[in-house]
């Protein structure tokens, strides 16, 4: 035996203060997000308007500030928070369940399916709500198909079959998207499709946001309830069964919940990669692998991260930068750094 026993969290900052710092960071980011943009809002104006709204009273600032805060920035800030938290929750779930550091919320093809649905919706000239509905339904249907393939193929590692089926269905959906893009009107539909596939939050209305929020909340409930069981699932199928878990049922519940959350997010934001891959790693560094801490920390960091990225997307240049491009620019080098920094991909 060794005398030196490394402890779980050797850093001097306690667990509670790490959570506290993250929360404070999120709050500061939310405040800043209401202030920055094409129309600058000062902190004083922001507080005045919010205070007046809370008391139901009026204020003597120009009404345009009300519009900017409540009509333009609030749905977008909330959407960034919800989508970021959802993608990170999906990523944390699939990484724990599949015991794979490269698992992301779209590993079972939800993004590819949603992309195909949205592309089809745009080609059929559906309204924005219809496009989102198509994305949501196609995303869920793709994962359902992947799950059925996984059930049908016997005699192999079930997780491996699922992941491979996800790759295959993703490729199939990708071919469908490519075909629709090839056939699309290059002056009208094609730019819309391209823009959707790169991810953006600028077209999200308050109603659509609320629907997505509802689905994300519904999907989060089983993850929270089964948080401790997830730790046991992350030991692998055989050990989890030997410890008394009905793993087939657990797997179905976790996959359904994570897919619902991811599909709801993707349907309003388009495809935003890297958040669900990268954020759970940072959360694991901060609070360890226990899912009852990993899940809330991932959601908190995911929300903060996407909000920050969205602020950059809408303020950095004259035109909006697609979110998927920014998250890839930040995510790819970060992930490489993370891999080289530790001997184990996990720590």
């Amino acid at each position, binding site marked *: 035996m*060794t005398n030196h026993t490394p402890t779980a969290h050797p850093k001097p900052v306690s667990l509670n203060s790490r959570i506290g710092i993250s929360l404070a960071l999120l709050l500061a980011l939310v405040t800043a997000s209401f202030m920055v943009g094409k129309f600058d809002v000062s902190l004083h104006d922001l507080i005045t308007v919010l205070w007046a709204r809370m008391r139901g009273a009026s204020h003597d600032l120009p009404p345009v500030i009300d519009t900017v805060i409540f009509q333009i920035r609030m749905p977008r800030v909330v959407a960034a928070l919800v989508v970021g938290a959802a993608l990170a929750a999906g990523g944390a779930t699939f990484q724990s369940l599949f015991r794979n550091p490269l698992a992301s919320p779209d590993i079972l093809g939800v993004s590819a399916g949603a992309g195909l649905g949205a592309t089809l919706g745009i080609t059929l000239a559906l309204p924005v709500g219809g496009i989102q509905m198509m994305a949501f339904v196609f995303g869920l249907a793709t994962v359902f198909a992947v799950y059925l393939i996984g059930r049908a193929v016997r005699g192999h590692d079930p997780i491996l079959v699922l992941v491979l089926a996800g790759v295959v269905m993703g490729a199939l959906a990708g071919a469908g998207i490519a075909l629709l893009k090839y056939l699309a009107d290059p002056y009208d539909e094609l730019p819309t499709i391209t823009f959707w596939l790169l991810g953006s939050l600028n077209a999200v209305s308050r109603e659509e946001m609320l629907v997505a929020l509802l689905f994300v909340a519904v999907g989060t409930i089983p993850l929270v309830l*089964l948080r401790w069981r997830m730790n046991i699932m*992350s030991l692998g199928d055989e050990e989890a069964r030997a*410890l008394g878990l009905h793993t087939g049922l657990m797997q179905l519940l976790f996959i359904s919940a994570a897919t619902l959350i991811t599909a709801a997010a993707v349907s309003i934001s388009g495809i935003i990669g890297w958040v669900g891959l990268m954020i759970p790693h940072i959360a*694991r560094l901060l609070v360890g692998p226990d899912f009852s801490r990993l899940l809330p920390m991932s959601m908190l960091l995911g929300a903060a991260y996407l909000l920050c990225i969205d602020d950059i997307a809408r303020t950095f240049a004259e035109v909006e930068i697609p979110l998927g491009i920014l998250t890839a620019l930040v995510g790819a080098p970060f992930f490489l750094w993370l891999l080289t920094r530790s001997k*184990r991909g996990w720590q």
Partner: protein
Amino acid sequence: MTLAVNHLAFGYPDHRVGADLNLTINPGEVLCFLGPNGCGKTTLFKTMLRLLKAQGGNITIDGEDISQWPRQRIAQVLSYVPQQHDAYFPFTVMEVVLMGRSAHIGLFASPSHRDYEIARQALNSLKIEHLSDAVYTHISGGERQLTLIARALAQQTILVIMDEPTANLDFGNQVLVLNAVQRLARSGITIIMSSHDPDHAFQVASRVAMLKDGRLAGIGAPQEVINQASLRELYGVEVSVMEFDTAAGHTAKLCVPMIG
């Protein structure tokens, strides 16, 4: 509590390993399986735990067929210390041991103070309480094996199945693990284990089962079953079984392979 294997056929869907195996495990004994690699020890254990489906015959506990038991009920009676443990996540030793409580905890619940207390006692009884906050992926192979045994203890089952608990451990760690097996047996737990070393059977087993090509080649007390002829039959090598007096004053046996 008595576990019995009746006319059991076991193996994988496309590969039968053994057939018509009969065996009764006596309460409180340490039954050690010996046999060459690929003889079916792990497959048999997995079938006993119902991780693999029995292909014929059945497994009973106190006469009751377990093939229809819910997972949780099996895990309340039978715990498993797996052979290789791939550690993926940096859980702490305490967190790993607590997972042994899952068969006793409600579906949506997390471990309570009582579960922590049981996990702490499991660590204490194996004298590894100092590892409680250590990260499972950072400790030595022997410490990991002891952690998994502690997890089985926290599961509070009457039967424990250990698949080669001393495999891939250095000499000192092998002794630590064998001591742990001994301590568990003295506390009244029935242990079904396998080993690659017949000497380990001499040291801790009350009975030895020799498994070859999925069949029982012999079963009985180690002193009676382990001898030159049976080891030649089992492993196909020449081994002398030496008898000597220990410092404590009783007779012990040791296997010495004939090299050259």
